């Protein structure tokens, strides 16, 4: 009976076997890259890493609702699964990790995890996440004015919802009824500060009330639930009914970054408890119901592992940025002779 209910879920959402396999691949690839990148940091080959572990279901679910032909995406630094689902590759991920010249996000200028890809309309990330929200609203404004049919998505953590920029963006988007989806991946911690130190309300979604906007709280450890809510938010935006605040309840398994030590602010038991709700493990039930069996998953896993290993070796051998290129792309064109700045 439980299987029947699960089986009807993906079908009811209009997702076929190809979708499920691709979603699984994106989540698994994220997990494998994540583990390997953390390892690279610990053995001294990568100065800085941000982990996505625990967020994969929410991000891949959201990615499946995005119209890749036209939508604008403003990810934040914990959105590796989102970006991989949208087409980022393992090689590109490692080029960013090792800050290589060919890193597609920034040519090795930004920390790893600060995604950017003009071709896929993934707009460059900032480290202070709050600044991204008004810019995301601006992407939505342009989409409406130009009539492109695009919806703009802006991602961030719950900590960023305390910034003035977030509130200004929510207000602007609502007043102007823009095609915007604000996705908050609430993992309960902004480095060490619990959500209770960010807000008195129970859910981030409750904050939407002040802006006359729907606020939806979703179990982000369930990729299909994440997809369904994102799909509905996109449809609302595309209809011209305005923005939605979408809150995914997730958890980050690892410290904030490779420079953080989380032992001072949370227990090992708490982490273990959340790991039992792991989004990839839970997705196995969906795959079972769709008849994508364990043997097939093992094949996919092995292929992904080989891809990750090859990408790591490939990226490590690529060229570093050159010091003399440090002043490139300050402006679109070099300044004329005699001018300084």
């Amino acid at each position, binding site marked *: 009976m439980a299987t029947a209910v699960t089986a009807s879920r993906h079908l009811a959402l209009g997702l076929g076997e190809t979708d499920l396999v691709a979603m699984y691949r994106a989540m698994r690839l994220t997990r494998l890259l994540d583990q390997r990148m953390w390892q690279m940091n610990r053995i001294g080959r990568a100065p800085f890493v941000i982990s996505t572990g625990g967020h994969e279901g929410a991000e891949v679910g959201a990615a499946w609702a995005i119209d890749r032909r036209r939508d604008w995406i403003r990810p934040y630094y914990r959105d590796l699964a989102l970006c991989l689902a949208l087409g980022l590759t393992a090689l590109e991920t490692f080029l960013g990790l090792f800050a290589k010249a060919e890193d597609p996000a920034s040519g090795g200028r930004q920390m790893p995890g600060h995604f950017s890809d003009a071709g896929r309309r993934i707009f460059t990330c900032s480290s202070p996440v709050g600044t991204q929200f008004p810019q995301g609203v601006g992407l939505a404004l342009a989409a409406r004015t130009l009539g*492109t049919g695009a919806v703009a998505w802006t991602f961030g953590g719950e900590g960023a919802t305390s910034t003035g920029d977030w509130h200004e963006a929510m207000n602007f988007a609502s007043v102007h009824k823009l095609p915007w989806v604000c996705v908050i991946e609430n993992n309960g911690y902004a480095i060490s500060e619990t959500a209770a130190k960010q807000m008195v309300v129970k859910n981030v979604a409750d904050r939407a009330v002040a802006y006359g906007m729907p606020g939806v709280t979703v179990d982000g450890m369930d990729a299909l639930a994440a997809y369904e809510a994102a799909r509905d938010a996109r449809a609302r935006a595309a209809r011209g009914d305005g923005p939605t605040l979408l809150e995914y309840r997730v958890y980050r398994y690892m410290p904030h970054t490779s420079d953080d030590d989380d032992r001072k602010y949370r227990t090992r038991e708490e982490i273990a408890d959340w790991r039992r709700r792991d989004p990839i493990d839970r997705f196995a039930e969906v795959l079972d119901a769709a008849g994508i069996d364990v043997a097939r998953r093992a094949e996919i896993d092995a292929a992904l592992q080989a891809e990750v290993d090859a990408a790591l070796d490939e990226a490590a051998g690529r060229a570093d940025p050159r010091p003399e290129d440090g002043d490139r792309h300050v402006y679109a064109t070099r300044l004329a002779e005699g001018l300084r700045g």
Partner: protein
Amino acid sequence: MAEKSNVQAVHDTLQEEFRRDERLIIIGEDVGVRGGVFRVTEGFLEEFGPLRVIDAPLAESAIVGVAIGAAVAGLRPIAEMQFADFSAPAFEQIVDEAARIRYRSNGGFGVPLVIRMPWGGGVHGALYHSQSMEAFYAHVPGLKVVVPSTPYDITGMLRSAIADPDPVIFLEHKATYRLVKGEVPDAYYTIPLGPADVKRAGTDVTVYAYGLMLHHSLAAAALVEREGISVNVVDVRSLRPLDAETILREARKTGKCLIVYEDNRLFGAGAEIAAMIAEEAFDDLDAPVMRLAGPESPAMPFNKPQEDWFMQSPEKIAVKMRELAAY
């Protein structure tokens, strides 16, 4: 050829550009129904509609942040800060975001955005409607910061700012809005963002200025001319980029340099110009490089005696010109 005031030049140029290019939008406070507190967008809402002329919530960070996103996604936004002083809440969006987006995306994204800011004192604007903000922004690579001061320059440089693929801070001295008038040709022309302009040729002293101080310096030059002092006045109408070639050439011409700026003196734009001359034209100087600028108070007082104390005037500038000429 038509005679216009500075504010008329801003209005007319924006209106023409809005007619030429449908991608132009303006986002700001009171820019719609009210037509702007300085009447810069008078008639815009009626002509261009609410999708292009956007009365924003009173939140400057969002005005700039939204404009950044809109620029990236294909529009050509003008963000209006009602007063330059009010740009402080948008500082992060301007300095940490707009200025860096091309750089941090390694050329992937650019931000073709003009941020207009009425600035400067002498209008009883008190602490929050008088400020000089140019030094904060001119310090930042990735931004262009321009300060045109005549209707002719405003027209030509605003056209260039709108066409520029990078973020431009366009500073308009509010005291000159109606005070300064000048001829503007009917034929289309542009003035590039960068080159300085010698507004008055002279042989004894070179003065560098922009904004209201340019006009005060020109008035002071006329005063001391009767005493036989010939003053060369350079309009530093772009701070970033800064026209090193013209600045140094005009310094060598007289060997005596005075920089006049309205901002408080320490760490102001004049310090950079003075340092450049001292470093690179030292052998051609006949006197120390001098600066005349505002006092070290955190902002301009409302009352007239202290506002006058803060501001430079043609008389104060003439005193400094005489001192330098006699050196």
